[in-house]
């Protein structure tokens, strides 16, 4: 049953989600003046105005102020006649009635619905992580929302009666991009930080073992220990279990502080710590879509029009979608989808055909960039051009197919990163030596003895020979007008005159 509406009534667009994808979609719609003909409602379950989620680790590290994360203030929505509802969690989508119901019972009808529900953090199977009531253990932190970030910031700055930090040690569970950023941020705050990663090297989804090892070494230099090939299996309160007989205490740098919790690994080690931060990846948030009977595999399945393959009036974008068998979890593809979806909602003939992804680590003194899917492209037969310098701590790899950079992984040295990503994004056809040249450091020209016909003063057009023929700086100035323009050649002129006099016996002062 569909509610019958006069044709002249504005189209009602309801967007579920208020994250970066949804915000971008609204901006793109506003840029197209869609609000003239559409009545837009945005339902965000977080209490905050939309913010730049990917800068949460920068907020944690202290390089960004919290206010600088806000993408749009509530007034902006009002100015454009958009109904923004914060703290509005959607309970159900009724496709037959074309409406959504919020947890408070409010029902909102739609003509078109956009699901931008994002992703939810994966909870690793660690016993003791979740309490009986379903909430996280107080020492355990997720790192997905601004609220999570604020709670962690509170925890790392909490002090006791003596002004001492309460929480001085942290274990980050998960050695992916987010885990590294969070670990680096905590390290930069002076928290003793360790990373536990189940795979045998860091960033295992993106980079190979050699690069991963270099990264682990970089982390170590920055004061963060790394345990790879180990999974956390059990969390206990140290007060609950004062005796940990039979376990080995590893690398405890603060023997006087036993830590508030103990995290047991499957290799038998136990890490004493005050905080556990879960960054073990996320998965598309699809519960709502699934309940509504939409086709969901890894994510909510959409076609090239970003519409659900089950219901053409329901669109989706961002982390929650699966397009062409892929889910992404990055902002740039979500934004590209936002541009395309805004066009589709405004009846432009556009379609989405996938995105190129550059994953860039956002953390001070950690240089990592991953272009596309290097491991996958190698399996597909791409040629690998690789440059490894473990002495310097760099490992760089480009995967080339048909002369184009189809993927890459750069660790420890991002020289020419801007150029490499340009070639990757634009799929420039390179020459045979070019991928190698891109990984080499540019040689600086050695100073040479200037030939007499070399121009020294560009402004006045004076050659080295003409300067050498002069008796002094003032003479050169008067007779050749060298140095009288921009003055940039003054030192070169002095140098030439000095060299010349050193060659002549009487020239020695």
């Amino acid at each position, binding site marked *: 049953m569909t509610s019958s509406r006069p044709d002249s009534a504005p189209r009602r667009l309801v967007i579920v989600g208020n994250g*970066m994808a949804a915000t*971008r979609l609204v901006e793109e719609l506003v840029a197209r003046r869609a609000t003239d003909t559409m009545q837009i409602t945005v339902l965000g379950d977080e209490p905050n105005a939309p*913010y*730049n989620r*990917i*800068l949460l680790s*920068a907020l944690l590290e202290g*390089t*960004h*102020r919290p*206010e*600088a*994360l*806000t*993408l*749009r*203030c509530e007034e*902006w929505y009002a100015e454009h006649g958009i109904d923004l509802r914060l703290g509005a969690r959607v309970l159900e989508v009724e496709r037959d009635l074309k409406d959504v119901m919020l947890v408070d019972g409010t029902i909102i009808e739609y003509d078109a619905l956009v699901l931008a529900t994002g992703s939810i953090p994966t909870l690793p199977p660690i016993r003791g992580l979740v309490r009986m009531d379903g909430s996280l253990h107080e020492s355990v932190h997720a790192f997905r929302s601004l609220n999570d970030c604020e709670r962690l910031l509170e925890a790392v700055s909490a002090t006791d009666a003596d002004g001492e930090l309460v929480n001085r040690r942290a274990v980050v569970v998960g050695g992916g991009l987010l885990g590294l950023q969070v670990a680096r941020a905590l390290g930069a705050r002076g928290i003793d930080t360790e990373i536990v990663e189940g795979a045998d090297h860091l960033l295992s989804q993106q980079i190979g073992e050699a690069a991963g090892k270099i990264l682990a070494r970089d982390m170590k230099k920055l004061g963060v220990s790394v345990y790879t090939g180990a999974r956390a299996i059990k969390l206990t309160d140290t007060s609950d279990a004062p005796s940990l007989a039979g376990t080995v205490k590893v690398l405890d740098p603060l023997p006087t502080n036993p830590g508030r919790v103990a995290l047991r690994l499957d290799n038998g080690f136990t890490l004493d710590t005050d905080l556990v931060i879960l960054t073990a990846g996320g998965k598309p948030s699809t519960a709502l879509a699934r309940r509504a009977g939409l086709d969901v595999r890894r994510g909510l399945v959409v076609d090239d029009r970003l519409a659900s393959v089950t219901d053409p009036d329901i669109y989706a974008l961002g982390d929650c979608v699966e397009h062409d068998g892929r889910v992404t979890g990055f*902002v*740039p593809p979500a934004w590209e989808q936002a541009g395309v979806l805004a066009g589709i909602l405004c009846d432009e003939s556009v379609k989405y055909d996938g995105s190129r992804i*550059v994953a*860039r680590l*956002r953390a001070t003194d950690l240089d990592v960039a991953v272009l596309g899917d290097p491991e996958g492209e190698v399996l597909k037969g791409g040629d690998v051009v690789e440059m490894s310098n473990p002495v310097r701590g760099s490992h760089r790899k480009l995967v080339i197919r048909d002369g184009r950079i189809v993927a890459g992984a750069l660790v420890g040295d*991002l020289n020419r*990163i*801007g*150029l490499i*990503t*340009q*070639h990757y*994004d*634009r*799929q*420039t*056809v*390179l*020459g045979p*030596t*070019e991928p190698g*040249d*891109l990984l080499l450091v*540019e040689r600086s*020209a050695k100073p040479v003895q200037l030939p007499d016909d070399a121009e020294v003063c*560009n*402004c*006045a*057009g004076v050659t080295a020979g003409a300067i050498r023929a002069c008796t002094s700086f003032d003479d050169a100035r008067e007779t050749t*007008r060298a140095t*009288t*323009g*921009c*003055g*940039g050649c003054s030192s070169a002129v002095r140098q030439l005159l000095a060299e010349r006099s050193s060659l002549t016996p009487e020239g020695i002062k």
Partner: protein
Amino acid sequence: MTETGGERVTRTHCPYCSLQCGMTLQKQGRTALEVLPWAEFPVNEGGLCRKGWTAAELRGHRERLTSPMIRDRATGELRAADWDEALDLIATKIQDLQGAHGADAVAIFGGGGLTNEKAYQLGKFARVALRTSQIDYNGRWCMSSAASAGNQAFGIDRGLPFPLADIEQADVVVLVGSNMAETMPPAARHLDRLRERGGKVVAVDPRKTPTADRADLFLQPVPGTDLALALGALHLIDAAGAVDEDYVAARTTGFDKVRRSVASWWPERVERVTGIHTDELRQLVELMTTNEKVVILTARGAEQHSQGTATVLGWINVALALGLPGKDNAGYGCLTGQGNGQGGREHGQKADQLPGYRMIDDPAAREHVAKVWGVTPESLPGKGKSAYELLESLGSAESGGGGGPRALLVFGSNIVVSAPRATHITARLESLDLLVVCDMVMSETAAFADVVLPVTQWAEESGTMTNLEGRVILREQATTPPAGVRSDLDVIAGLADRLGSPVPFGTDVEEIFAELGRASAGGKADYSGITYDRIRAEHGVFWPCPTQPDGTIHPGTPRMFADSFATPDGKARFLVVEHVGAAEQPDATFPLHLTTGRVLAQYQSGAQTRRVKSLPDDGPFVELHPMLANRIGAHDGDPVMVRTRRGEMKAPAKVVTTIRPDTVFIPFHWVGANRLTNDALDPSSRMPEFKVCAAEVTA
């Protein structure tokens, strides 16, 4: 001119760029001139580049035109004619065309190298004698984006709101798209002094130019991404809490929206768009936030884009957030390009403006100016088309034109070389019923004309210019022009008379300047308190310089914005701008960025400098990186072919490591480069996108 005894010495200014370096001309014999320093003039302190030193060589040049030329109907060749015949012919043709097709059938195209007096007379001539709305000038292709941005943000457009030498006392100077060491070499002395004092220079340019060689920090962005860089810089400034909140609250409006808009320009995103490493962006921001006195200067590199105005606004937002404009030795400025790029845009040469930087659609402005001119406000035409749009509309549709004006009078411009998408524009010129070109040599544009009028050049006439600082200076006549040559002002007066203008047009420059002053009085660019004598006595006078109601002398305004901005509420405006990028992006067929610019020894379309023997003229070249040269099999010195969607040209390869490997550079002083450039226009300034388009290069 001092001509007592053997001295025969004139203090004047260089004929070329907006620096308008002071120089001394000494007469040698009857007509020859020697260029000598004028050490006291503060902008260049006696320094000149080789263009200035050799400026007098064009005098007595064998290619100098000394007789009007008329295209013979029978042979199609130009033949010499006398002035009356030429002017009569032009006037008759104009009257015929206007009689048949209306006043707008005749258009005027001026130049940013013309004196203030000429620019003023030209605007008045168009509106009063021709009564056409169709007048614009090549300054549109110079600094118009910065002009538009300045008007929007500060309520006024003066290239530099402070004397250039002020930058010596700054802590940091950020140059966005300026190659001042090559394009205005004596200006670079101020950078050197700054560095001697321990100040830092930042250069942003796709090429590591001689200016970038002087920089402490060099950022090499993808052409057309300077705006993304500005957004990224403001993002980090805000993230670090380095915004000058007190200044923003007291002296600006609109920051909140701008602040939100840059929240989505985090460094890694900026890196992906601009090709600039996040560390380098952080270094730039560190320099700007840890120093008090920061100067941000833009030039053509940032401005000649379809997003030129937005790009400048982006950098102005950075300057305002840091609380710079109005502070001593700090702020934002534009390094204007053409000799009178500043003055040329203030006196009515622009399609939408009347003298004093008044807008032609403002009834009060029309009334004021009409009164000075002795005509009725209703008689003044309205807004015309901008430079490129005007040229594109030329010629009757039947003869392959754009359906716009059928006659064009060109003063001080060489359109065939300098217009973007030049082949197309040249065809439009050919479709005209009448093309009149005033020039001193047979320029590429003059060669297409129906009538060529030989005019006086610098040193043979007097007149004021307004340099990049807003300093009104006086170029004095130093010698007599060759026989047969007349001033542009004589041409205007002669035509106005023949066309039955309701008011006469004089030719006395000082009288015209005084009238210009009255016309500008009360306008934004108020010249009414400036006289030739004051200019001589004070090394130039900075506008605004009004006449004071109490009769006291206004000192002029070297530094602006100390207390308020020229907006109605006195506050500077933050404006939200979004990066869109170049109109034409590289693709599989045209995989490279092409950018254009200048070389030291040449000036603009080269009509003058290419004829000066002492200036090397090796012709155009294609600058490319060794990686690209290897890719396409090009060798240094061998010709390569450059193609775009609009044209192609062949020129020798110049293989250098100083350019981005995804970009090629061609200087535009010769016919060729602008056959390739894109005519996409900035929506606000109508600036064509000279600085970037997609190209293919083959060996």
